[in-house]
């Protein structure tokens, strides 16, 4: 079979992709927007709304001979179906003819629309969707002038039905297209929405516990073709036509979700441009048209009251408000007088431009220690070698391909990857999840029986701390699984750091790289290594020379002067107080004060991602830029301007006029960023499906990508370098001794990190502090489920509730980061658990 077929749309022939449906084909090839409500290009067609009716004909054949029938003039005889057909459920075939503009078709659309409106409230003037509503748009084109429906017969239903904490359902507006139901089922894999009753009483319901609370719930409001689903964050906040869309990148995780910030000059923000909502921006290689709820609802920190807004300087032992000029001059003097004993620790929220300016400054004062924060994942050197090949698109993984996810919980760490990998499994890819505890993705790997979908998957449960040897010895210990992974056409391995020390995370990535190299899965698209590095720019840190190993070195041998940039050391590291006390001068630049102002000599307010431009490198090595959107908070500066300013003052280099200029210099200096000018980063191309155009009814309100699809840094393997296996005979793994347990910090998406706390809407979904412990270990510690326990590991001492469950293997305790005020260990470490017996209650 050929890859294309020829079809005729309204009298014109088009060559279209075989296997496509008529709606997609007509839109992509002929620019013919067949109206739809229920059909969505990211989901299976169901033909429910009947809006896409067309006249459909196929070449006739003689029944006896099977010969194609011809008219007198020799042309093929086209036989039309007596009734109109739904375009969304019809797959194109050679010679197919459709008519989309005949009176019969237009009448049918008008009738379907009138039917849909029979009980729709038409409350567009107060509807959040008004202005970008498929139903509104199609009503303008096909709707009746006046309703023939008796007004009294209109149904009066709930207008504000909370479908979850974040989403409201307006039952009057719902036209029952089931897009939200199918999104939850097909895309997310959490079928907590369904129809109830039938006919005119049909309603969307949830009867699950917990209900509609996935990390992706906001996407249903984008694909809802009417105003039935709205977010609690944005509803009644602004009208779509008042909003100015600014392309940006989600600041939360390694996925680098492309987002669009909907801006409006707002009274609530002193008349400055303010983020009213966050919408997805299409990037089929990165996040398709989906974003996580954290990206959508987590923008409030950019305007938080407790953000740093004024430069401060310690004079005479007291921290006092200062101004930039004085602070910069003082810092320049301090740095120059430090005899090169200067080091920097930069957080993974810093942009590439910031990091470059910081590095230039340090090099200028003769210092070279550049640390990355948090020092938990050390997979980056291997990602540089054998990361997923250039051009990788996780949505191309399917039958014949394989995915191994080890030592991480993608649902919590990089939800978009979890979403896309689960869909790869749905398409037939073989999914293996290995961890010391249950994770959401593991449920998909093993619960093929759920909903009786036939899926391929396996789970490996290993003892806490054993990830590296499991990966290294996969052939020996799990020969069948290893065999299937090796033989796969394409193989992606996702290696995390859960239950591992920093060195362990490096070793795991090395073992995974070995496997990929051995089985020949490197250097091509859809093959290679991924790692859920924390923050939006974990890989940018690596490419600019900031490493977690250096951070450990800085912690062991603190410098005289330490620059801390956008890293909340005291929140993350229980030992920070101690080692910071050995630093003479601390220069802290950031968004929030985590208590470091007690010690720091300079406190410098930085701008958030929303206030300035810059670029991040996502986990797939894609350099992506974000644009200035929101008005600035106080006197905050972008970090590149601050560090560039100090450099200029110290006579090291001139301050660049813009982030673009910094990037230009950077792209000329660091090989990985070669060619990554802002102009190159803002290049776009046409993507399938064509969302965000005039016909919002097709793909929903995800925005067209006008900000750039980014530029992927090639791996060593991509460039044809000879990547070598590393001998891994000796692997030092963490082992708990008698009476000890392996304390494994884990990441929860919703937590009490300073930047997430201001998003109050999500607050009630943040779990209370807990630790997951195996029943045997709990018994040994004399504790039961719900007890208050104290976990001690190194400098860390936290009190949390015990959650006793065999979801975790014996020997380990999963302790979520950032749920308590006290810092949990940075990485996995050996510790003890005991029941708290003193009567002092700890919240």
């Amino acid at each position: 079979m050929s890859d294309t077929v020829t079809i005729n749309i309204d009298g014109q022939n088009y060559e279209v992709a075989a296997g496509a449906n008529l709606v997609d084909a007509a839109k992509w090839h002929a620019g013919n927007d067949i109206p739809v409500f229920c059909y969505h290009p990211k989901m299976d067609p169901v033909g429910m709304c009947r809006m896409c009716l067309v006249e459909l004909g196929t070449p006739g054949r003689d029944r006896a001979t099977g010969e194609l029938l011809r008219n007198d003039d020799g042309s093929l005889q086209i036989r039309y179906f007596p009734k109109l057909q739904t375009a969304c459920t019809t797959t194109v075939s050679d010679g197919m003819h459709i008519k989309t503009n005949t009176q019969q078709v237009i009448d049918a659309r008008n009738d379907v629309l009138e039917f849909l409106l029979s009980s729709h409230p038409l409350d567009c003037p107060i509807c959040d969707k008004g202005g970008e509503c498929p139903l509104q748009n199609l009503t303008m084109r096909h709707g009746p002038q006046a309703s023939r429906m008796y007004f009294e017969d209109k149904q009066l239903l709930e207008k504000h039905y909370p479908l979850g904490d974040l989403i409201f359902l307006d039952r009057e507006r719902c036209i029952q297209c089931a897009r939200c139901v199918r999104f939850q089922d097909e895309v997310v894999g959490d079928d907590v929405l369904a129809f109830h009753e039938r006919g005119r009483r049909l309603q969307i319901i949830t009867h699950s516990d917990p209900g509609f609370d996935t990390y992706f719930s906001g996407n249903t409001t984008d694909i809802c073709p009417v105003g039935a689903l709205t977010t609690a964050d944005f509803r009644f906040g602004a009208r779509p036509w008042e909003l100015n869309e600014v392309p940006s990148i989600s600041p939360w995780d390694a996925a680098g979700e492309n987002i669009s910030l909907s801006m409006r000059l707002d009274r609530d923000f002193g008349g400055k441009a303010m983020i009213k909502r966050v919408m997805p921006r299409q990037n089929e290689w990165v996040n398709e048209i989906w974003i996580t709820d954290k990206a959508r609802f987590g923008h409030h920190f950019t305007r938080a009251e407790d953000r740093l807004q004024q430069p401060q300087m310690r004079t005479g032992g007291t921290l006092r408000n200062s101004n930039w000029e004085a602070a910069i001059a003082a810092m320049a003097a301090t740095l120059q007088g430090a005899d090169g004993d200067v080091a920097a620790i930069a957080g993974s929220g810093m942009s590439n431009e910031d990091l470059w300016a910081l590095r230039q400054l340090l090099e200028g004062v003769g210092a070279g220690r550049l640390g990355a924060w948090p020092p938990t994942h050390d997979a980056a050197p291997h990602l540089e070698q054998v990361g997923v090949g250039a051009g990788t698109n996780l949505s191309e993984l399917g039958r014949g391909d394989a995915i191994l996810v080890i030592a991480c919980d993608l649902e919590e760490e990089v939800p978009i990857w979890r979403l896309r990998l689960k869909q790869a499994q749905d398409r037939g890819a073989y999914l293996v999840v290995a961890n010391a505890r249950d994770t959401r993705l593991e449920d998909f790997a093993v619960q093929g029986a759920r909903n009786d979908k036939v899926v391929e998957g396996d789970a490996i449960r290993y003892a806490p701390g054993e990830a590296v040897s499991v990966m290294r010895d996969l052939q020996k210990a799990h020969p069948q699984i290893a065999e299937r992974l090796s033989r796969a056409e394409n193989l992606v391995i996702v290696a995390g750091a859960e239950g591992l020390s920093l060195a362990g995370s490096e070793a795991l990535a090395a073992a995974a790289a070995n496997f990929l190299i051995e089985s020949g899965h490197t250097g091509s698209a859809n093959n290679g290594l991924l790692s859920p590095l924390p923050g939006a720019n974990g890989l940018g840190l690596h490419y600019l020379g900031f490493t977690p190993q250096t951070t450990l070195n800085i912690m062991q041998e603190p410098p005289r002067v330490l620059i801390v940039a956008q890293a909340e050391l005291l929140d993350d590291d229980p030992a920070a107080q101690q080692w910071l006390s050995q630093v003479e001068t601390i220069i802290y630049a950031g968004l929030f004060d985590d208590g470091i102002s007690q010690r720091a000599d300079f406190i410098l307010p930085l701008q958030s991602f929303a206030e300035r431009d810059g670029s991040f490198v996502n986990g797939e090595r894609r350099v992506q830029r974000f644009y200035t959107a929101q008005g600035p908070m106080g006197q905050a500066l972008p970090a590149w301007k601050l560090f560039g300013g100090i450099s200029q003052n110290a006579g090291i280099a001139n301050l660049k006029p813009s982030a673009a200029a910094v990037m230009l210099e950077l792209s000329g200096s660091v090989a990985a960023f070669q060619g990554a000018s802002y102009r190159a980063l803002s290049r776009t191309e046409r993507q399938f499906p064509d969302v965000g155009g005039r016909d919002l009814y097709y793909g929903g309100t995800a925005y067209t990508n006008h900000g750039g699809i980014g530029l992927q840094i090639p791996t060593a393997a991509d460039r044809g370098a000879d990547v070598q296996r590393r001998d891994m005979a000796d692997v030092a793994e963490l082992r708990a001794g008698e009476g000890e347990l392996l304390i494994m910090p884990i990441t929860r998406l919703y937590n009490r990190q300073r930047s997430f706390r201001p998003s109050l809407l999500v607050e009630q979904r943040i779990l209370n502090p807990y630790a997951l412990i195996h029943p045997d270990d709990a018994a040994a510690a004399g504790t039961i489920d719900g007890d208050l326990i104290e976990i001690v590991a190194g400098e860390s001492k936290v009190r949390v509730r015990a959650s006793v469950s065999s979801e975790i293997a014996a020997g380990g305790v999963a302790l979520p980061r950032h749920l308590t005020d006290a810092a949990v260990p940075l990485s996995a470490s050996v510790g003890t658990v005991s029941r708290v017996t003193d009567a002092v209650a700890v919240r």
Partner: protein
Amino acid sequence: MAIIGNPKYEQRIERHLAKYETKRSAVMPLLYIAQEEYGWVNSDGIGEVAQILNLDPTQVKSIAGFYTMYSEKPKGKYWLQVCTDLPCALQGADDFHAWLKDELGVDEGGTTDDGLFTVEHVMCLAACDKAPMLQCNFRYVEELDQNKMRQLLAKWRSEANGRG
């Protein structure tokens, strides 16, 4: 009681599960069992069916909502569905239905105060030759008249009291 772990239903559930290629297909017969146990399709029953079939409760609820023979409201112990379609009506089923409601003191679809009887009218049950007729908990009771019905009600009452 419950369905899961109830010896009364164990074999029946097994039999239904064995009938279908995919587990979820057994959702409808299992919902009947839930309805039988609880008298209506309540949240507990939905949860148990979902657990047995490894489905999300929302999906089970959706099925129960679509089909009218699953009742999502509490019903009396004896659910009396009187056929009042045309052939039955010609045999006096309409009057019979009205009389029965009077006799029990309930409105259409209502349940007696003692929680024993629910009366509602239904479409054709395909027993036109035996009209007036009704089905009691999906079992046919045919060729009814007021006398016979009084006896039956008395019998059911004593049955219920005897056990209760």
